């Protein structure tokens, strides 16, 4: 049985199937690719906004000094002047939103020792102590004011 296409009738059918599938694919492309894809490069431009929208947890020491200028004056007298407030006190964003939520004051001994423990290979410009020899069981703040540590 040879029809309009001679003996190629079945070939045209399978070719039609492929063309149909390709057309469906083209429609899917239009429907599913986000409109802002490719605006700045091979990515969805909205992703930049998504990343920017993340809330910040650290506020920066300038914000702290705005209310706590007295602590900052103390700090300027000693070497901890270079250490930002949140480096020890942790992120302060929640405190800014609601000042009744105080930043967590960490336990002094492990906190101080992270920078000041001897025997861990730190460079010489950091004062380092072997904690047990230096202070026994005492917490560091029993003797040192953390904002002006050398007395």
């Amino acid at each position: 049985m040879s029809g309009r296409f001679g003996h190629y009738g079945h070939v045209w059918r399978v070719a039609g199937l492929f063309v149909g599938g390709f057309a469906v694919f083209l429609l899917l492309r239009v429907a599913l690719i986000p409109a802002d894809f490719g605006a700045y490069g091979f990515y969805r431009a909205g992703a930049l906004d998504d990343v920017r929208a993340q809330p910040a947890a650290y506020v920066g020491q300038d914000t702290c000094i705005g209310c706590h200028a007295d602590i900052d004056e103390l700090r300027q007298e000693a070497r901890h002047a270079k250490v930002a407030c949140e480096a020890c006190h942790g992120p302060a964003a929640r405190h800014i939103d609601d000042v009744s939520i105080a930043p967590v004051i960490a336990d002094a001994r492990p906190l101080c020792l992270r920078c000041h423990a001897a025997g861990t290979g730190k460079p010489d410009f950091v004062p380092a102590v072997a904690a047990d020899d230096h202070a026994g069981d005492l917490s560091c703040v029993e003797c040192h004011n953390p904002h002006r540590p050398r007395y």
Partner: protein
Amino acid sequence: MQGVEGFIYPNELELQWSVLIVLYPYITGLVAGAFILASLERVFNVAAVRPTYRLALLTALAFLLVAPLPLQMHLGHPERSFNMYLTPHTESAMAMFGFVYLWYLMAVLVLEIWFDYRRDLVLAWRASRGWKRRLYGALTLWSDDISPGALAVDDRIGRIITIVGIPSAFLLHGYVGFIFGSVKANPWWSTPLMPIVFLFSAIVSGIALVMVLYMTLTWIRRLPMDMRCVDTIATYLFYMFIIDFSLELLDLIHRLYEADESLRALDFMVKTRLFTSQIVVQILLGTLVPIALLAFVQLKRVSAAWRQSIYVTAGLLTLIGIFAMRWNVVIGGQLFSKSFLGYTTYKMEFATREGLLPAILVMLLPFVILAVLIRVLPPWGGQDRTLAEG
């Protein structure tokens, strides 16, 4: 830390690519290899392997259908995987692979099987009733033409498809090798030889698989073994194996000779963590023993019964060995730290999404599909192409 030796970067504790990613090159390798065997007859007119032609195609199809499954099970978001077709990043080897897979599945394998089986499908359509009639009708696209002219068209198109299919098969699996070989951050993977090594080991595994399947099915059907066919397949397996082994040796010798920064880490790893799977399973049991067995048959006269035993043994060892090769590349490449100062271990679980159990099930599934395909599209006695040419 558990299972860590030396120093690894903190993010390197757990492996990123699991046994499922080992399966993927293994499966596509079997597909490519089975197809190359089929093309031996169709394009290069090696008439001796004719009895395995249709079986090889069905095997390739069964495994190719399963191939995306381990990948989908591995992805963090498989529901987004279609994005590889919508926004394929052309700089990424992995992105283009989706199109290579689709091309090979639809434009090569499915079409080739369709054109080869079409006459039988039409006959089955005419002869059956009920749901089977509907099935075969759909499979023929409701075209009834099996006149000699139409069959000649089928034969010619089928031949063209196979010719196109050979480089397509090379692309299908060579591409997987490129996905690994192009990662400059990983010295175990990064080599221009990777696509070629992958391809030849794929051909070896595919030929071994079809050979073992054919022999097993012949035994199950209690028919006499076509020794001429099996001997020819074994010969091709032997020669492909020689090439494959030479390539892998070349890679190893090159690394040992250049002895750059990464060698110390790799050498140590091979001697300790990877020793069993690389030296014992892949090289000894999976390569040297099968090559020796096949060489023995090439050189000495052996009875048919012994040859069958040797071929099956060599074939099964080959399949295990090529799996070990994939394992050593994928898992081995992740066992050492990119600092070259330490190692971690692969903790393969059993019944989790990427564990051993799903891996076993994924490997069994193609055989189930193949059993179904053999029922629907029997590969035995099929189309006698001389009828069309006559």
